[in-house]
């Protein structure tokens, strides 16, 4: 028999313990010791899957049983942000800039979520009319990002002073997010799909994710759920609502400058998409049917049906006089799921509240006006905070709002600002050694302002 290294020998022993049913207590201690050497050390690579003990699921009485097993701890961090969309990006950068150890996991290979991967390019309601003036309400992390995009070509259009609702280039946005995330010192892991949570009583202590490197755990003092779909708070058992919404799929077409709009309109092809920084390219929205964005069968059906509809539509444009040169440039890699789960927060912000002048003692962000003409609406901290669960915040499109206000809250602008607020709050909770629920609001607002956020 070929002698095993000590480590492998230990693992084998461990495996034996576990499969003998004696394992959990001893096993988890050992695994934690083994992989736990990673604690605080960012450069540490996880043990390859092959070298780890195996605990395959098995059938018992026709049921698939997942054996109890210890999980390798991939990282231990202060703030863990799950989901790198607009909200998660802003949260991670804010927390890291506030000086706490921050980690971000993202199931895909790029940042930006629906903004970049869903090809939803226009950042609506970046501004509002405050005290009679068109005022940018998306500042801080989101503002920094757009400022940087304005310095590259092609980066962002309609971002000059006096304008609002800019449109950014998806590749430039992804690139710039990468830059800002690494610059801020966020420990980022792509291709990690969070699947479960680690609980200690009523408090979330981390998440479990699946990856090419197997199923592993990340321990954290505060977790921010910016998966957009509330995957994390749902797994943690936090009270939430589930809504249906139209699910679409965006695509982009090229050579739009060469079309004869009138001829196409006559053929019933009116929607030629919205402008982008790239010349002659348009992104075309698709509304789609209202359905459940958490249902695999629906998601699969819609991917196929929408892609077919897009294909046929572009073919139709090409077959119509005046549209021959148009080509299908891209179908968004991410399906356009607008709303699924919404957290039941300590404050459900209503459309009515947002349309009347008011202030909240715990305002942490200002929502913009879609047309820039109306006053901004204050967003209270309570929309990010679960009713009972501790150690967790949400932000972005899963924030706690009523059915009508979803349409404003899910806009990229509000995702950026609420993400920023959640990141700062999480950092403060870590620093003050308290739960997000007990964060000192005055301190939080001061930190947000220090980071450039606009609070009215």
């Amino acid at each position, binding site marked *: 028999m070929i002698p095993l290294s000590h480590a492998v020998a230990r693992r084998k022993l461990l495996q034996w313990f576990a499969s003998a049913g004696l394992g959990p207590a001893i096993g988890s201690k050992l695994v934690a010791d083994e992989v736990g050497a990673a604690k605080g050390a960012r450069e540490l690579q996880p043990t390859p899957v092959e070298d780890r003990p195996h605990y395959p699921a098995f059938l018992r009485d026709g049921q698939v049983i997942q054996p109890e097993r210890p999980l390798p701890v991939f990282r231990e961090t202060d703030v863990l942000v799950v989901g790198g969309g607009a909200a998660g990006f802003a949260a991670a950068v804010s927390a890291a800039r506030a000086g706490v150890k921050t980690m971000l996991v993202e199931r895909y290979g790029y940042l930006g979520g629906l903004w970049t991967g869903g090809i939803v390019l226009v950042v609506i309601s970046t501004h509002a009319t405050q005290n009679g003036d068109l005022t940018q309400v998306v500042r801080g992390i989101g503002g920094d990002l757009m400022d940087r995009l304005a310095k590259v070509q092609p980066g962002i259009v309609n971002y000059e002073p006096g304008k609002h609702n800019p449109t950014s280039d998806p590749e430039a946005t992804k690139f710039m997010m990468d830059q800002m995330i690494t610059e801020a010192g966020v420990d980022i892991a792509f291709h990690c799909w969070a699947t479960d949570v680690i609980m200690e009583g009523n408090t979330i202590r981390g998440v479990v994710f699946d990856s090419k490197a197997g199923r592993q755990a990340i321990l954290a003092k505060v977790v921010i759920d910016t998966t957009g779909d509330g995957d994390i708070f749902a797994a943690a058992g936090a009270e939430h609502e589930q809504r249906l919404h139209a699910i679409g799929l965006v695509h982009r077409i090229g050579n739009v400058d060469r079309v004869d709009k009138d001829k196409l309109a006559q053929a019933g092809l009116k*929607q030629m998409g919205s402008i982008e920084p790239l010349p002659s390219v348009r992104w075309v*929205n*698709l*509304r789609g049917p209202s359905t459940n964005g958490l249902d695999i069968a629906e998601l699969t059906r819609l991917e196929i049906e929408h892609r077919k509809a897009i294909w046929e539509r572009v073919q139709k444009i090409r077959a119509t006089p005046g549209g021959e040169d148009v080509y299908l440039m891209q179908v968004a890699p991410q399906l356009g799921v607008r709303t699924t789960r919404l957290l039941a927060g300590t404050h459900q912000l209503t*459309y009515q509240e947002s349309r009347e002048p008011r202030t909240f003692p715990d305002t942490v962000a200002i929502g913009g006006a*879609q*047309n820039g003409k109306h006053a901004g609406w204050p967003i209270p901290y309570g929309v990010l905070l679960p009713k009972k669960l501790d150690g967790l915040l949400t932000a972005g499109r899963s924030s706690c709002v009523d059915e*009508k206000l979803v*349409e404003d809250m899910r*806009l990229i602008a509000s995702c950026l600002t609420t993400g920023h607020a959640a990141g700062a709050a999480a950092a403060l909770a870590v620093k003050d050694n308290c739960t997000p629920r007990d964060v000192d609001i005055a301190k939080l607002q001061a930190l947000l302002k220090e980071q450039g956020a606009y609070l009215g």
Partner: protein
Amino acid sequence: MSRWVSLIVIAALVSPWLRSVLPVAAVSPFVALVSAVAARSVGIITLIGLPMLILAVLVPRVFCRFVCPVGFLQEMAARLRLPGRARWRSWPRVGRWFLWLTIGGALAGYPLFVWLDPLALFTGFFSAFRLPTTIATIGAGALLPLAMLLDVLFPGAWCKRMCPLGALQEALAIAKQSLANRTRATDESLFSCPHSPVIPTSSPFALARRPLIASLVGGAGALLARHTAAKPPPLRPPGSLPEDQFTGVCIRCSGCIRVCPSRILKPDLGQHGLAGLLAPVADFDTAYCKEDCNACGQVCPSGAIQRLSLAEKKRSIMGIAKVELSRCWLAEGRDCTACIRSCPYEALSVSSDGFDSHPALDASKCIGCGACEAACPARPERAIRVFSNNLTG
């Protein structure tokens, strides 16, 4: 010395009204009578003015003497009288003509000169301070000072010669007198008050001839005015009379404009023709007609805006929304549902065949409150706007 006293009294009388929105003009029997005739209905607010009408039959010029603030102001102003000759006796009695033209007009649905009612002038003056300063509003606000100035220069010229409300009371007195004449001799003592009219003692037919002619002219004028009503009509407050009557019955007191909490009512500055000048028009630029408000109808003294209960108001149609797809964000492919969400009556929904989406209107639910128009983000022109459909003329 007495001049100063007069000035102080005038100031004391005037100042409380600067902020009030009470339907003061409802007390005027002239307003009550002609607006009830024009609208062919008697509302609660009419019932305030009618007793005064009955009283005016019993006591000559009772309104002028005991109620009319303009009359009182005139008296005070008269004390400011500058030395010189009073020449009011040579002024024509145009008030009678205003009266009969207006009554004739009211019979034809359009009381031509109701806005010359002294209480309308009175409230119009105070409204002018609360409205945007334009030539039209200054003009409306200037009528009361003008009338007073006239009386300072020519004592009694307004009250005794031009005021249609004065003429109404006079006419009632004459009618009563001529009835009495048939049965007994003239009792001069009845008219002992200083304002007493000069009572001609001719036959009833002769008495009625001029009013008849004036009324006929007024009726013809009314028909003409109704015929020329703005088309399409401007958006009026909820519960407004049909457009071809509204501009006639509205006395331009601006009470509705001032009381509207959403500030959507604005004085018409001539955008819709002369007939509508200074009447309230609804403008949904920044706000809409709230579903839980019926304030404008409550303060309207003439019934041009009917008093509606909140339940009635929610069914009262001001207009109807219309979408212009070429400007609509949703139709352009943005995820905009601003109008749909804003609609308090759930009259709008998303209609989509995938790539082409647009707001769809359920016309049976839309009352034209303007919430969608106020919410629409499209600029410079909005994609959804409310158009009046309250046209009947």
